[in-house]
């Protein structure tokens, strides 16, 4: 019995140690450009504002942004980017540090950023200088499809590339934990191939489903923000630096009728519980009214057995500069009153299809890795054979 107890203590200790981090980083990527993708830039800038407000210093935020909205000649409000009808809050402000701008937002740069394989000449501000004590928040937005995200209408990053890059980060000891968030069409496919420990992932829509934009501003003339990001940001306004809200609280706040798509969560790679085991906020995740299909939550079964501290939102969004080593953050459990800056009526204008879904929605999920190869080679042979027959006229 004593042995068992010791063993339990040991386990708890390991889990406790796994949850410790001494610095926070954020990688925010908007992979679209051009004026009509205004909302993607607003998404990224909204996240930027939130992580900065919660205390991640600019030097630890890597923002990849085409950045052609604020100073676009079509922008009636020059130098500003708004994320809501009525233009209450200028997200562009006067203190935006874009690390990768315009044509620098490429798949190669993104993967180099993650893996740390830079050319010697790349300055510190463009590097992700994380270590094994870093918690990283990775946010991707843009146009995507099943297992890929398009970068500036030019190239694509596949979910496999991101998984491999994160695996290399794990191997190199470049993170403690990662929170991976994607807002794009079929976003949940982007985290489906991850395989490295310590990653918590969430996406805006299931495979075969679009993500939608939230609202238009008729003076700006385009959709100003995507629905999923809008409601995440709206929730984040309730979080302050000392908040004890957990990740489970954030995920439980997903409201399908409002968002218009079915967000998913993946926690099977993540060691800590998402919320308190008693009265878990996600106990009924994905089963409420409005969910047309049951919400996707990979790792639902494993949640019960997890030990250690629950994952707080501020573990990923806050800046934990523990100024004094023996100082504790304290047990403050208070909410900051909503300052209503980016909150507005949840009145939803007719949803604009935000992303071109490149693949038909009824696309079969690829079952196993052999299937697509077989199918493709069969098609190749069939077509070739047909041509040969026609030509020779045998």
């Amino acid at each position, binding site marked *: 019995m004593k042995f068992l107890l010791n063993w339990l203590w040991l386990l708890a200790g390991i889990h406790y140690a796994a949850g410790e981090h*001494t*610095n926070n980083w954020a990688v925010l990527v908007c992979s679209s450009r051009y004026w009509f993708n205004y909302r993607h830039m607003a998404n990224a800038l909204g996240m930027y504002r939130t992580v900065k407000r919660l*205390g991640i*210093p*600019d*030097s630890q935020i890597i923002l990849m942004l085409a950045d052609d909205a604020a100073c676009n000649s079509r922008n009636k409000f020059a130098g500003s980017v708004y994320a809501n009808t009525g233009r209450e809050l200028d997200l562009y402000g006067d*203190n935006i*540090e874009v690390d990768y701008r315009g044509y620098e937002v490429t*798949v*190669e740069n993104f*993967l*180099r950023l993650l*893996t*740390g*394989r*830079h*050319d*010697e000449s*790349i*300055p*510190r*501000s463009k*590097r992700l200088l994380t*270590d094994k004590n870093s918690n990283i928040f990775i946010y991707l937005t843009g146009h995507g499809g099943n297992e890929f995200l398009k970068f500036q209408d030019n190239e694509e*990053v*596949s979910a*496999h*590339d991101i998984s*491999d890059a994160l*695996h*290399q980060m794990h*191997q*190199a*000891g470049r993170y403690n934990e990662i929170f991976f968030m994607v807002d794009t069409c079929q976003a949940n496919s982007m985290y489906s191939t991850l395989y490295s420990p310590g990653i918590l992932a969430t996406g805006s829509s299931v495979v075969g489903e679009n993500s939608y934009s939230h609202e238009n501003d008729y003076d700006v003339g385009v959709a100003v923000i995507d629905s999923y990001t809008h409601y995440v940001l709206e929730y984040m306004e309730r979080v302050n*630096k*000392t908040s004890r809200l957990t990740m489970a609280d954030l995920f439980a706040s997903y409201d399908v009728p409002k968002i218009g798509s079915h967000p998913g969560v993946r926690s099977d790679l993540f060691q800590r519980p998402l919320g308190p085991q008693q009265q878990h906020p996600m106990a009924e995740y994905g089963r409420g009214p409005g969910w047309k299909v049951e919400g996707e939550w990979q790792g639902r079964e494993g949640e019960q057995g997890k030990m250690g501290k629950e994952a707080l939102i501020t573990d990923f969004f806050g*800046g*934990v*500069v*523990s*100024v*004094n*080593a023996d*100082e504790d953050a*304290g047990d403050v459990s208070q909410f900051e009153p909503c300052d209503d800056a980016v909150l507005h009526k949840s009145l939803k204008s007719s949803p604009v299809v935000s992303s071109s879904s490149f693949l038909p929605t009824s696309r079969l999920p690829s079952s196993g890795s052999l299937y*697509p*190869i077989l*199918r*493709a*080679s069969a*098609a*190749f042979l069939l*077509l*070739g054979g047909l*041509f*040969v027959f026609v*030509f*020779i006229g045998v």
Partner: protein
Amino acid sequence: MSRFRDPSTISFQYDSVRRCIIASYWIIIALALPLWWKTTSIQRLPLPTSEVYTQAQKKLQIPLEICVDPVFSSQVSSIHASIRNVASYLEVNVNIGQHCNQSAGYAVLPGDQLLIQDRKLYYPTTLAVENLPSTLVSLVAPEMDQRAAQYSPRYRLSFTLLNEDGSAGQVVTGWDIRQAISQYISPITSALGILHNFTIESQVQFHAPLAFEPASLADGTYGLTPENLTVFINSAEWTLSSSSSNDPVLHFVLFVPSAKRRPLTILNLDGNPSSSSAFLIPQWGGIVILNLPAPPPTTLDLTLPDLRSSFSPFSRQLLTLLGFPRLPPSVSSSSKGTLSLWQIDSLLRQRTHENVVRSHDTLRSTVTVVSQIQGMPVDSQVQAQVQGALKALHELFAFARTNLSLDEMLVYSARALTLSSKAFFHPGMLALLYFPAEHKYAVYTPLFASAMIPLFAAAMREVKAWRKERKEAKAKAAKDVAVDGAAMDANAVDTSQ
């Protein structure tokens, strides 16, 4: 009858010419295939995988000889056990010797007070002898401070004097930074020069606004709450270090609050002003708040005596950030103000051990990642770096027991670490993007299918014609009607067209 010439008589319609043309296409394709294969395949040089795995399983044992005076002979086994317990990377050897005070190594001698001098520890016999092992452990293998920065062979120390708002009056226009550095920082950098190569830079800024409003207190002063401290650094508006190199930077900021907000104090958790005006951000650097005295001094150039109150915290912060162990509170050093050899040695051992573990991990990760990700190129530089790291480790392990000083061990371990991380983070090691088979067919089919089909068709038709020709020629030969076989042959070719 026809005014057209018989096709078989036109030079470029000769069978042989046509066949040559078709054959040349195939020859070019056949020759191009290896070239295409070579240009599209990636260079993956072999890495010494098995060697890396064997090396990564080894554990470095750093020898540690302690000579103990016979007075403490009862504690020998306890000393041995407690040091091994805390630091398994040390190969402890405790001797009882009569002449410990003459040895150059570590020695424990009886003395009047608990004192260290060079590598000797004087332990008063009046103290409980059972505490000797724990005292030795805290001298030889102290716990690494969590706030220390990760080891790097090079550091850049950046000293910045920040005036919050120069326009509000009472601006500090200069400081005697050279004197202050030589007084407070140079003793540290020269003592730890074996471990790191330091570059120092300094600057004065006249406008450095805070990103928040400090709390206004009842007595008219201003305070920084613990929460304020975490966001104190306004990295968006302050440029604290030059970006001319990629060496890790340790920042030291002397912050002069604006004349409108003086004095600015640091508040405790309970909201009362704390006595300290300095705070440390782990792995990042240190900050000291400098409040100018109430009647503003006539000269606003800070002299060495003025800087005393800020640079002694800076030197302590620097030591903490470099992982320099503290002396146990009960132990005093004979040479006050300088760094004792006990501490420097234990830091050297710790960093060596750390570097070896890190380079093992990095090497193992490199090999694993390369074998797991098939599209990852490995060029000769990476190969050389991996081999170089292995060589440094081999040498370190081979000579650790015999004839390597602590300094040399650190040099080897640092070289292994630098090379292994250079190999892992080599810019050429970027895997090719993942392309599913569908993508490959989608790229190649439109281009090659359309070009290949006519080629195939022409070749097959030519082969058919040739076989038919041969068959007919054979048949004719058999029938032995060879009178006008040539004309018949021409007809045969015509019909097939």
